[in-house]
């Protein structure tokens, strides 16, 4: 079936429908990873967004039962150049197309994805519609698109209930703003006794829960929308409990401590972003997925110091808080998809908890 992708700026792309044929409005973003479409689709941070894969051959290895990053896909749409009709991999259980259909995700293929990407890069992220209707009212669709905003997504994607995963190690409270399963898995790998809390859990619940540390997860949307959560994060900060935050969690901590965030023109989404760890003096290749970023100029040096910098554009990639056992990064050390080169941060986190426990470190 024919499908059309229409952008907010009026440019249309004619292609072929894949997945669901339902019409969908979403924010169009591009991801430059060459593998990992299953993880990307199921990453809650993509809630409300349509993902354009810049790599042209997608679906080659199908879908398997192990690589979902959450209970179901969150991306609203998938835009690819060529969808493989069959997946070839020993773990493959269904084709990507069947998976999209089963999960009601609208998609389009056979379009000039590089052209689309270049538009998004030059003009910035914008909204779009994918429709299978032959005679659509373009003006009406554009008007509808202009109304659209990714909002309230943290509430949508966050856990509704508290989950406890027992472990032998540190007791860690994980705030789920849209966490990827691999974050849980990495903490489990380090033996943590893990409790996953919904996004709106009051700080006091955690602080009274006898936890050794807190982890703030990644998540979708504009961090400045999460004012209530920011208040709670502030409380955690003031309490001085060892905290490690990633992506949205990193942004929320920055906002909670007086810094500002802004929306980047087209964000960082991919598996090849170089980040320099200033303390180690080394660069690492990281997995990234964010449209908002902490404004480096707004960070009060008395509150936090930049610990990681993006080598490409100099943007803030990590903060180490002054006088508090808190460190946060913008990128995804849990990877999945993408390089696992910064997995050492989980080890750093364990070490931080250890030192706090020993009472040696609070600076």
């Amino acid at each position, binding site marked *: 079936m024919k499908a059309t992708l229409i952008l907010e700026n009026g440019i249309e792309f004619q292609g072929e429908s894949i997945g669901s044929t339902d019409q969908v409005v979403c924010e169009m973003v591009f991801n430059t990873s060459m*593998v990992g479409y299953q993880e990307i689709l199921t990453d809650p941070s993509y809630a409300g967004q349509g993902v354009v894969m810049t*790599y042209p051959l997608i679906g080659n290895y199908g879908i398997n039962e192990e690589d979902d990053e959450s209970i179901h896909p969150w991306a609203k749409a998938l835009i690819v150049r060529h969808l493989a009709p069959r997946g070839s991999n020993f773990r493959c259980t269904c084709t990507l197309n069947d998976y999209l259909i089963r999960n009601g995700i609208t998609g389009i293929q056979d379009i000039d994805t590089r052209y689309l990407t270049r538009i998004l890069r030059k003009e910035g992220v914008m909204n779009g519609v994918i429709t299978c209707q032959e005679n659509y009212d373009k003006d009406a669709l554009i008007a509808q698109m202009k109304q659209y905003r990714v909002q309230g997504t943290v509430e949508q994607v966050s856990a509704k209930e508290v989950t406890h995963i027992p472990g032998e190690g540190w007791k860690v409270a994980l705030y789920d703003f849209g966490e990827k399963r691999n974050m849980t898995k990495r903490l489990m790998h380090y033996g943590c006794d893990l409790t996953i809390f919904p996004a709106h859990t009051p700080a006091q619940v955690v602080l009274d829960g006898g936890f050794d540390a807190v982890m703030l997860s990644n998540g979708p949307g504009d961090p400045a929308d999460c004012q209530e959560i920011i208040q709670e994060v502030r409380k955690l900060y003031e309490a001085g409990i060892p905290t490690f935050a990633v992506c949205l969690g990193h942004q929320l901590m920055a906002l909670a401590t007086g810094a500002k965030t802004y929306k980047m023109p*087209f964000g960082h989404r991919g598996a090849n972003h170089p980040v320099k760890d200033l303390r180690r003096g080394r660069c690492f290749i990281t997995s990234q997925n964010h449209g908002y970023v902490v404004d480096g100029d707004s960070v009060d040096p008395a509150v936090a110091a930049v610990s990681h910098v993006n080598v490409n554009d100099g943007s803030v990639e990590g903060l180490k808080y002054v006088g508090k056992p808190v460190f946060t990064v913008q990128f995804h050390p849990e990877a999945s998809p993408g390089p696992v080169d910064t997995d050492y941060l989980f080890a750093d986190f364990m070490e931080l908890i250890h030192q706090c426990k020993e009472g040696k470190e609070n600076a």
Partner: protein
Amino acid sequence: MPKDTSIKKVLVIGSGPIVIGQAAEFDYAGTQACRSLKEEGMEVVLVNSNPATIMTDKDVADHVYIEPLNIFSLHAIIEKERPDALLPTLGGQIGLNLAMALYEDGTLDKFGVKLLGTSAESIRKAEDRQGFKDTMEAIHQPCITSKVVNDTQDAVDFTNSIGYPVIVRPAYTLGGTGGGIAYDEGMLREICDRGLSLSRVHEVLIERCISGWKEIEFEVMRDSAGNVITICSMENLDPVGVHTGDSIVIAPTQTLANKEFQMLRTAALDIISALEIEGGCNVQFALHPESYEYAVIEVNPRVSRSSALASKATGYPIAKVAAKIALGYTLDEIPNAVTGKTTACFEPTIDYCVMKLPRLPFDKFTHASRTLGTQMKATGEVMAIGNSFDNALLKAVRSLELNVHSLRLPKLQAMSTKQIWDKLFDVDDERIFVVAEAMRRGITPEEIHRITKIDIWFIDRLGTMVKLENKLSEGMPDAKTLRFAKEVGFADSFIAELCGSTRVEIRELRRKYGIQPTYKMVDTCAAEFDAQTPYYYSTYDVENESVPTDNPKKVLVLGSGPIRIGQGIEFDYCSVHSVWALKRLGYETIIINNNPETVSTDFDIADRLYFEPLTPEDVEHIVELEKPCGAVVQFGGQTAIKLAKTLADMGLPILGTSADGVDAAEDRERFDEILNQCGIPRAAGHTIFTTEEAIAAANEVGYPVLVRPSYVLGGQGMEIAYNDDNIRDFMSIINQTEQEHPILVDKYLMGKEVEVDGVFDGEDILIPGIMEHVERAGIHSGDSISVYPTLNVSEQHKQTILRYTRDLARHLGVIGLINVQFIIYQDQVYIIEANPRSSRTIPYISKVTGVPIIDLATRVMLGAKLKDLGYGVDLYPEASYYAVKMPVFSFEKLTDVDTNLGPEMKSTGECLGFADTYPQALLKAFKGANMKVPGKGSRVILTVKDQDKEEAAQLAREMLELGMDLYATRGTHAYLREQGISAGFVHRLGAGHPNIEDMIGSGVVDMILNTPTRNQHQAGDGRKIRRMAVEHSVLCLTSTDTCRAILTARKEGHSEQIVPIDITKINQ
């Protein structure tokens, strides 16, 4: 870390002659590295025995030594130049081995030369089989169960403990030379014996055979701060078992999910970190197709063929960055040449599919086994970029220049389905075509996968193409189908073939429907950043990113495609120099080429680079878009020449010699007409089409005759025939491929062959030098030893040659280059052939005479006159030193190719000997070609045909004077005895013991002179002897002329007085 300021002068070692397993990629890497070093203000000393390279230009390095790549000459060069440091990892395996040898023997220490980049310790860890295994074990990286052995019995014992089949890999050899898969003890013993004798350290690795696993490669980089990145992942379509150099390779990986991908990526980074590599490195893995089990196959602690591919595939300049890392910079300190804003510390991400196909020499070696295994056979490769697997593959197929424009081979179409099914079991260069044919016959993807172990995803892709073929066979396509066919990558000519039309009709149909290609940029970042790389590939898409300038001074330069026998790196040298010359003259330049190993496909050579097949259709599209004011076809070898007509038909002016001039030189009748007008004699001959005509022509001019197709490269399909049977034999081989052009039958004159390159401006000619071939006519010029200046050509003949060349150039309408070959026979100069284009001798003659031939030719093509260019006209004054160009062969890689030399070219590369006397230059050239020049006490076997016995006797006397021990087979022995020359007797094959085989096998023979006979049953013996010599690394000469040269080198050359010469100084 900032750069190491104690280093001011750096020695770079090149990789020597082009051989199978080591092709042009190291010229590309070395050139990029030298430029990178010079950018940093380094004084660069370059050593490479290969004169056809760009790296040996004085523009690229400050001091250039075209000297043998051995410890002896390197020691002398280091002593003379006193470099501060040596960069070991950019000259391939040869350069690396040599650097290690200089380190181990204390030379580097003695002269205070620092090894840049990766340390000797690390190199040893990666290169030494056992050391490597230990390192991998220490970091828990699985290797394949294996054992290093120095003895065949050990190999057998070990294999009995792990079971057959096993792979045998000799240590320290190029391209896996001498390796193989053994399925039983007999095979194991044979391969092991050979491998041990070829290995520098007499060592082979016996390992568990994991044929059928996926072969995955990562190209990785590390700096001194420990930053590690991967540049590119690659997946071989051919599962483990086929050498990666002979495999179809796709970048990035296609069938790995994130989990497997990251597992191998992390392993690659862990390995490069553990080995402490500083620079580029290639890691090859075998991955079990149905589990996470994997094994590290190999690590190359240096820039490699795969690095060149990864560089071109991603746009990331690996060699350049590796050179900067070696100087001490870290990745985040090196600017990114693509974006101009970011740094080299990132991982390229690509938004297209890259296909590499090997260029195998079976079109030349028609009798060779096409089977592919662990020993590389390809002479070169092509790369194609597309937005799908399908179009990348089809572009790559077209780029091979094998007269194939699709996945359909007529020869396979003629086979039965049963035959095709059987053929699926053959692992050879045609397998991809066989798979496509099997799909056409309805053999299921699952069945094909079961037999071939090729991942089903790839087979599915071929299935899509086959389906489309069927659709197109139904008749003229509608707009939608035609667009789809173009998106999939079908050539207009193939669409025409399927629907019964012509290429031109399909082109017109496309124009009617508005179906035109668009060009996308290779930018390393999938459009995430604004990039400035003028590096494009075609797609059928919406947005065209290649916006041409409206510059009226814009010239298209056609490249020369894949490296193959007869068309080597020298044409890339010419193309690149032409681009540089045009740029100096203020022209905008566009280059089209498809060879990832070359300098010309670096995006900073021409103003714009199109990485595309060199076919009429693909070139037309670019011309339509760019609208250049003219095209240069003289420098891209036969590849470019063949396109001259297409360009002329489009109305694009061919700069210099016109397409018509090219045709006049190739068309026998027109050429004869011109020769008549100029009064230039040539051997009598005829053009023919059929075998009957050939026999009639041969009998008319009288045997022996030369038989060859016109419009060919390197004497392809050329043979000397002595009788009617020979003619029938050759004609049947020639006719295996469709002949568009007639075949030539000429009287064969056995005289002295002489060759010239000239530049003609319409009035005057400049001949930089006349070259004389050591071997008499009958051996292809590319396989002959060539000497400049001439030794035995009289002044009168030189003047005749000058006059003939000038007259010929004028009558052919040459503007620019002309290459002419002559024979001096019975004191008369005859012409053999003329080519109005660059030749393989241009780079070397430019370097040794100091005449910038390509620059002059380019200027002349644009209207300049030689008189105004400062190098004079007519014969350029002869130099006071000698340059000997020596052919280099790759016979040890091609196990069933006869090594006898004849009119069909067999060499893959060349080296140069350069000295102030002829014998000394010869000696250097032999050493450069890695030939052991025999001397006192050497054992020599003589076995020559009757016509050569008299000469062999003279040579035998000289050998005895030099203190060699002679042996001869029956006929030769008897003749020598008659002449009073004492030689030991050795039996021919199968005539009792000890025979020649026993002697070669026992390793006591140093040289064999075997001149081939046409006598049917003896010819077989001769071939066997020659092959045995190759396999035991015994020097085997097939021409008495070559033998005389080697004796001259021994007698009059002085090994102990080899003086390295900096060629940048000689012409000043």
